[in-house]
Structures are given as structure tokens and as C-alpha cells.
């Protein structure tokens, strides 16, 4: 049997976003893979550079449709750190509550897609039906189902809707029961285990070498979670990360489901402990930060550690660099795909819960010479200068 290239993407039913993975295949066995990004590069990092600090919040919300709140939290935390601000405690709690709710819906989506990839549509539909509960909880608290736009520099834009807290707690109660049910499925159902157990195995050693983030690394037995550093209100909530030891697709799903249960606990605790008071610090219309000041801000997004590097140029940033968790998780993809059979490829990719649109970097393909290269900052500057000459 000869080997051939099986194109996985850019358009493929198993992929939600466009990415191109060239699979070198012999029969049904994958010999190697090559990841090609660049199909939905949005140029957001560049766009930050000509917006005021406050306007950047709206932009960072749009980096991702699923974990937008984490991007704004990370961005605002960074700016507040540079300004030396400590936001009101109530605002910290609100940021945590909305974030944990967002984590629940993101994890449900991820597990649902794994269920769909193994051909079990029923579990997928169940998860997405129950996901409506948490989406509604979002709407109760913030008024929006996605893109909550709760954060501003210095706090949150609006208080959560206190009349609806009871309904949110009811939704959380229902969800808690459902997560027990799903955990039981992943523990006992032979049909599910058959396709997920020992598939896409990542050992603790390899995980240390390649250092993925989020549930991917925690399922391999490494307790790495930025929430442990106690940013925002996490310092009041006694946070301990969920760790699994299987290292396979099954374990990643189980870790996600357990994290959902943990998020429910965190939200309940946060509702109890949340103090009364201000929700934001009044700031001038145009914030000025000393030029050249820089910071690194980290939060734990659903997919893992999200890092913003921000450098100031006075009333706006001179550079915002976003390191999304998916970017870090890509490094294990080639390792995981080597030697597996085609049916396991989409399952493994889905188990990393990739978010390509957050991650996309530019690739230039020279069609005439049939070669491709990733361009650097210098190349761009050179190209820009070259254009000026004409």
C-alpha cells in the first residue's frame, strides 16, 4: 500500500474553523502531520496599536467568540497592573463569576464535539441542550448570551442582575446533576470508552517537554493552573486545580467535566462571599500610562493559560502580544497524531479543544515558486517601506 497525503481541512466537516493539516497516510495509519495556519488571520494585535486603552477592551472581546470574557479580563488586568490599580472586590468577584460560567459552556462545547467526533450524536445533542442552561444563566446575569462586555478598565460595566441570581442557582443545580450523569457515561459506557480510552495518549514526561496548557496538561498529571496564583477573587476561594492521570482523550474529557463541577462550586462560593460596594473605579476618559511601561498578564482561560504582553505608548498600547492557549497546545499535535489511524485523528484534534481563530498567524505562500514562509516583523517593515518607495 503506498502512502499518500490526506488533506484534513481547510474545509472539513470535522473542523469548525479553517485549518489545514496535511496527514501523510499509509492505508489507515498516519505517518506524520503538518499544520498549516493562516486561513483566518484577523490582524487584531496590530489593530490594538491605534486604539485608546478603553477601546481595546472591545477589540479583545472579539478575539474569541467562546472565551471573550477571558481576553478582556486578561487585557484589563494588565492595564490595571501597569496603572497600579486594585479594582473593587465586588468587581473581582463579578469577573470570576462570569468567567467561570463561560468556562462551563466552553467545556460543554468541547466535550460535546468530542462526542460528535466519535459518532455519538446523542451525547452531543444532550450536551448542547444542557448548555442552553448556562447560556441562559449568562443572559440572566449580563443581558447577553455571548460577548458579555462586562469588563472595563478599572472594574466591570454593570452589576450582575441580582433578581436573577436565584434562577442562575437553579440552573447550576440542574447542571450539577447533569455533569454527574455525563461523568457516569464517560466512566461506564463501553461504546464511548472504546473510542476514547488510550487514544491520543500524552505521557507526563512528554507533557513536561512540550508543555501544553489547560486541561490537556492537567489530564497528563501536571497540576498547572494559573488560577492557583490567586489573581482577582480566586485568592478568597481556596482554589485547587483538577488533575487527571490518564493522559488520553477520555481523561481530557473527564477533567473538563470535573472542572465544570468545580466551576459550579466556585460560582456558589463567590455568590456567598461577594461583598456589597462599588463595581468600578472612576477613571478619566483618556488613560495615560507612562510610555515604555510594559507588563505581562496571565489568566486561566477554558483552554489553558492565556497571556497578554502589553507595552505602553502613552494613551494607547505600542504593542499587544496575545499568546492564546491553543497556540501552546499545537505543539503536542504532531506528537499525538504520529502512528494513529485516521478514525482517531478528528477525535484527538477535538480533545485539544482548539480555537484556530484566536491563534492564527500569518503565512505567506508563494504560489509561483511553490514555497511558503512565515514572515517576521522585519519582513513586514521591509514590505511597508518598499511600498512607500513606489
Amino acid at each position, binding site marked *: 500500500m503506498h502512502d*499518500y*497525503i*490526506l*488533506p484534513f481541512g481547510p474545509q*472539513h*466537516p*470535522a473542523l469548525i474553523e479553517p485549518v489545514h493539516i496535511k496527514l501523510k497516510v499509509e*492505508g*489507515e495509519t498516519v505517518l506524520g502531520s503538518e499544520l498549516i495556519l493562516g486561513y483566518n488571520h484577523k490582524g487584531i494585535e496590530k489593530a490594538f496599536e491605534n486604539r485608546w486603552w478603553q477601546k481595546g477592551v472591545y477589540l479583545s472581546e472579539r478575539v474569541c467568540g467562546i472565551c471573550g470574557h477571558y481576553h478582556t479580563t486578561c487585557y484589563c488586568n494588565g492595564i490595571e497592573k501597569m496603572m497600579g490599580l486594585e479594582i473593587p472586590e465586588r468587581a473581582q468577584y463579578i469577573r470570576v463569576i462570569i468567567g467561570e460560567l463561560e468556562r462551563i459552556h466552553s467545556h460543554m462545547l468541547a466535550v460535546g464535539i468530542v*462526542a*460528535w*467526533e*466519535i*459518532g*455519538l*450524536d*446523542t*451525547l452531543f*445533542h*444532550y450536551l448542547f*441542550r444542557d448548555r442552553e442552561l448556562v447560556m441562559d444563566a449568562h443572559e440572566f446575569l449580563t443581558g447577553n448570551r455571548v460577548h458579555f462586555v462586562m469588563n472595563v478598565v478599572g472594574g466591570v460595566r454593570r452589576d450582575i442582575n441580582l433578581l436573577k441570581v436565584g434562577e442562575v442557582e437553579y440552573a447550576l443545580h440542574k447542571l450539577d446533576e447533569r455533569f454527574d450523569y455525563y461523568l457516569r457515561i464517560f466512566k461506564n459506557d463501553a*461504546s*464511548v470508552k*472504546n*473510542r476514547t480510552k488510550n487514544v491520543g495518549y500524552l505521557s507526563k514526561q512528554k507533557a513536561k517537554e512540550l508543555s501544553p496548557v489547560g486541561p490537556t496538561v492537567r489530564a497528563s498529571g501536571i497540576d498547572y493552573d494559573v488560577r492557583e496564583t490567586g489573581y482577582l477573587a480566586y485568592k478568597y476561594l481556596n482554589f485547587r486545580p483538577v488533575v487527571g492521570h490518564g493522559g488520553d482523550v477520555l481523561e481530557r474529557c473527564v477533567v473538563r467535566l470535573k472542572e465544570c463541577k468545580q466551576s459550579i462550586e466556585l460560582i456558589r462560593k463567590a455568590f456567598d462571599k461577594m461583598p456589597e460596594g462599588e463595581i468600578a473605579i472612576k477613571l478619566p476618559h483618556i488613560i495615560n500610562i507612562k510610555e515604555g511601561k510594559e507588563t505581562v498578564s496571565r489568566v486561566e482561560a477554558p483552554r489553558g493559560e492565556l497571556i497578554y504582553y502589553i507595552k505602553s505608548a502613552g494613551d494607547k498600547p505600542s504593542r499587544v502580544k496575545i499568546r492564546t492557549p491553543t497556540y501552546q497546545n499545537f505543539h503536542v499535535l504532531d506528537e499525538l497524531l504520529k502512528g494513529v*489511524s*485516521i*478514525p*482517531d*485523528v*478528528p477525535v484527538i484534534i477535538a480533545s485539544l479543544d482548539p480555537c484556530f481563530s484566536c491563534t492564527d498567524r500569518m503565512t505567506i505562500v508563494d504560489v509561483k515558486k511553490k514555497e511558503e514562509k512565515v514572515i517576521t516583523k522585519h519582513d513586514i517593515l521591509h514590505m511597508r517601506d518598499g511600498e512607500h518607495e513606489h
Partner: protein
Amino acid sequence: MNIDISLLFYILIFPGFLTAFIIGFLYMGIMRKIAARMQHRIGPPIWQPFFDFFKLMSKENITTKETVGLLATFCPIISFAAMLTVVMLLPIPGYTPLSFEGSLFVLIYFLIMSSVFFAIAGFAAGNPFASVGSIRELSQLFAYEFPFIIALVTIGVANAFSLTPYIAVNFPFALFAFFTSILGKLSLPPFHIPEAEQEIVAGPLTEYSGPRVAMFELVKAASYWVLISLGAVLFLGANNISMFVLASLSILILLIIFRVVFARLTISQAFRIYWFIIAPLALIDLIRALLGW
């Protein structure tokens, strides 16, 4: 030359071609609707397969550069013709003028032929997804055909190789083997391996469009009708129409439950299950039938 009008009616309308397609599409529609309700969805209307069929018929055929045009044209037709032959020989209680001694075997052969030409159509498309789909279709054919034939032959031995109604109470393993092999034949979960959209897009039909897909849809509808009817008559012993309807629907419901409950197997797992679990069990029943226990 005199043409027997009733025979013509039998072949073309009831319980021949027209019935096969209409009831087959209805089975598919009912399956989609009930499965959707089980998954807490609303689901398409029961008539959706008919709408799909008429829409496909009105579309144009697109042939890509890599496609072997001749094969792509004739594979659907041959597959369709093979399935029509099967429909003609199908034993329906009260209507079996065309069945003859050994028609059981002809039926098995033509069923295989229709699947094989479906796979060849995939190879003809010149698309990697279609090729992988065809390889899987053929591998799965080898996997399920063995227990399928054993199950039918068991009933054949017990029933003197006629296609008269027979109740397989004595041969539960043969019944089980038959039921699991029609899951494979119809590409239903957990054996929806050749058409795994998450892995290989649309399988063998990836490059096909318009009337050719419509043709394969007809083949699929007819195979639903053929396999469910075979089960109802040969294994559940339906000897009149009302019992036949009842038996067919109960098989259909069982198929739907399987469709909703199971995740997809991989091709090697499917092979293991068919050859090392289902086939040996069916063989026990075949030996019992041969020895007359």
C-alpha cells in the same frame, strides 16, 4: 406474446419497485424523526428523504477532472439494477410469484453486487476521501457478509431453502447475527464507518452530485426495504400483511435504538466483532440446523 398484467403490476408497483422506494424512504424518514426526538431535537419531517430525492434529481451532474467518467456513470446504474433484481425476488407474504429454488442465494449475490458497485463508484471519483471510504465499504462488506450469509443459510437449511415465512425462535444467534449484519449493510451506528462524515466527509459519494447521488439514495431506500422485509419474513415469520407491518416496524425501532445509543467503531474493531463474536455464534446455530437439533 401475452404479458401477464398482474405480474407486471407485481414487479412495478406492489410489492415491487414503487413500493420498495416509497416504503424505503418512509423508513428512512421515520428513522430520522424518531432518532431526532430521542436526541431531544425536533428533526426533519418524515417526508424529508422524498424532498431530498426530488431536489437531487433536479440538480446537474458534476464530473471532476480526476473522475473516471464511464465508471461514475455506470456504477450507480448497475448498483441500482442489482437492487431492483433483489426487490423482485423479495418474499412478501402472499406475493412470491418470482421466487424459485435457490432465489435466496441470488438475493444474497445481488445484494453484495449493489454494495460492491457503490464502492467502485467511490474509487472512480479519484478523491482521497472517496478512496478511503471505498476501502472501508469493502472491508466492512467482508466483515458483515460472513455472519449475514451464515444467518441466512441457517434459516435456509431449517426452511428447506424456500423463502416462505419462518420463525427463528430456535435460532436466536442467527437472528442476532442477521440483525447486526443489517446494521453494517445499512451503515448504521455503530457500523457507520464508510460514511463517517467527521473523518472522510461523505465517504464514497464525496465527489458525486445530482442524479447519481439520487440513484444511490434509491438504492439505499430499497436496501432498507429489502433487509427489513427479509428479517420480518424469514426471521420473525410474518405470514400476513398486518403481521408483516408489525414485524417490520419493530425491526426498524430496534435499528433506531442502535443508531441513537452507539458511538462509531473503527474498522478493525468492527472486524473483530463480526468475525470473532457474531460469526462463531451464528455458526453454532448453523451446525444445529444442519444436525437438526
